[in-house]
């Protein structure tokens, strides 16, 4: 077709803008430049096309395997992790999803926690903005953590190990409950029950790091370092609470708690009075209910809550 030079140039620019918009917030200069650029309908059309193409790719890569939610919630809570009974309601309301295929992608969008029952009877709860790929073979159950955090409760099967791959770190379990969090090249493993085996592949060479991690164990692996520690059962319980739709704080600073609350909040909490940031907070909150959290924090520290469309502010009284 007469793909004249101007048209190609226009489409190349549109693709660059689509990528920039996907990267995150534009700078003020960029936003102004884009506003001027997209005045022309041809450019606007090309940009809409490029941006929807970018989204379509996401959709094809992840949505392929999203299954319909099932109405009933079955209890995944274990005796070892005792939590308020109301937690069950949160889970049931969220709805369990069944992923019965042996191969597929499972994702949890931002602000959502997604519990999923896997084909082998194992359960997994995906934290906000998490992407998992499942590949179950007869000899081994492989799960690839592409981003985010997930808690696994593995159905026991000695002959068919369950392996979570997070970057170059492999976490192998037979039947246990553990979580893996991946943040770029950093990987964190927490074990609530049973034992897992963590290995790392370096430059294609397997098993260059080899570590057993028992219940209450935590391991943090960065690109060239790995460190294990044992946590108090109470701390493990706290760090697993999000899978029941709860966020627990046990003396963390208000500033830290707000970061955590905002991972699940559609309307973020903003602290207007920085002096309150260091105050430590204790309590259990439902993920996603940021207003409730803000009210409690304000009441505890003598602040007040200002509701705005874009955010919930905690200000000095």
């Amino acid at each position, binding site marked *: *077709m*007469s*793909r*004249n030079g101007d*048209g190609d140039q226009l*489409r*190349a620019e549109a*693709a*660059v803008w*689509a*990528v*920039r918009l996907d*990267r995150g917030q534009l700078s003020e200069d960029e936003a102004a430049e884009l506003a001027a650029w997209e005045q022309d*309908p*041809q*450019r*606007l*059309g*090309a940009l*809409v*096309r*490029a*941006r*929807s*193409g*970018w*989204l*379509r*790719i*996401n*959709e*094809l*890569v992840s*949505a*392929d395997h999203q299954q319909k939610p099932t109405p009933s919630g079955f209890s995944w809570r274990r005796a070892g992790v005792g939590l308020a009974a109301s937690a069950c309601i949160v889970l049931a309301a969220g709805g369990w999803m069944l992923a019965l295929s042996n191969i597929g992608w499972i994702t949890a969008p931002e602000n959502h926690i997604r519990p999923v029952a896997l084909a082998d009877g194992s359960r997994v709860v995906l934290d906000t903005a998490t*992407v998992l790929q499942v590949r179950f073979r007869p000899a081994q159950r492989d799960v690839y953590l*592409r*981003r*985010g955090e997930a808690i696994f409760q593995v159905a026991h099967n000695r002959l068919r190990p369950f392996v979570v791959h997070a970057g170059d770190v492999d976490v192998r379990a037979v039947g246990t409950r553990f979580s893996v969090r991946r943040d*770029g*090249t950093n990987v964190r493993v927490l074990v609530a029950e049973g034992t897992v085996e963590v290995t790392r592949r370096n430059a294609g060479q397997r098993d260059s790091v080899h570590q057993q991690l028992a219940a209450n164990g935590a391991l943090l692996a960065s690109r060239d370092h790995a460190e294990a520690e044992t946590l108090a059962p109470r701390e493990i319980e706290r760090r697993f609470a999000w899978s029941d739709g709860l966020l627990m704080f046990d003396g963390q600073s208000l500033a830290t708690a707000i970061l955590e609350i905002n991972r699940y909040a559609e309307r973020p909490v903003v602290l207007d009075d920085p002096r309150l940031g260091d105050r430590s907070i204790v309590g259990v909150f439902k993920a996603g209910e940021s207003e409730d959290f803000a009210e409690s924090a304000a009441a505890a520290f003598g602040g007040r809550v200002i509701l705005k469309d874009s955010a919930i502010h905690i200000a000095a009284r």
Partner: protein
Amino acid sequence: MKRDEQLLWFAKEVLPHEAALRRWLGRRAGAFACDPDEIVQETYARLWAANAALILAPRAYMFVTARRVLGDLARRARIVSIETMADIEALNIVGEESSAERTLSAREELAKLMETVTKLPPQCRKVFELRKFEGFSQRETAQSLGISESTVEKHLSKALQVILDAMTGADETDGMDWNGARHVAKRRRRSAQG
């Protein structure tokens, strides 16, 4: 409808039909000496301005909009004969809709995407895979490959263009000559045979 929702709507309801629209256009745009890319872009701009929430049959609406774009272009061109105008008005959207023009299933689309990715230049492919399949941010992608973020941006936009053209069939007609007169002749010949 919010901007993000509308983009999602485009990704789900409009983009998957672009390949069929281009095939439909391919038989006509040339006749009016129009660039199919320009018609597609103008169609997207008009659909964007419409209220997507109210559009019930997106595919048909897209074809109707494209037909209007063609009509407007032809009117603007002035040199187009009355006969040509009548031809545009007579374009049978309903007939096109029920023809064998099939839209790819999501699975087929995914297969096409994967195949296109393997054909990208090696570094471009690596950047795209880290960003889209591994879920790395642009910064993480840059760090992990030891390149600048602006280089990542360049590779990603290149990959997006190539994949988008493959998904929408825009690459299939590349290099064809859209000389109006010749296409009118071709089309006449074709209709004479049919």
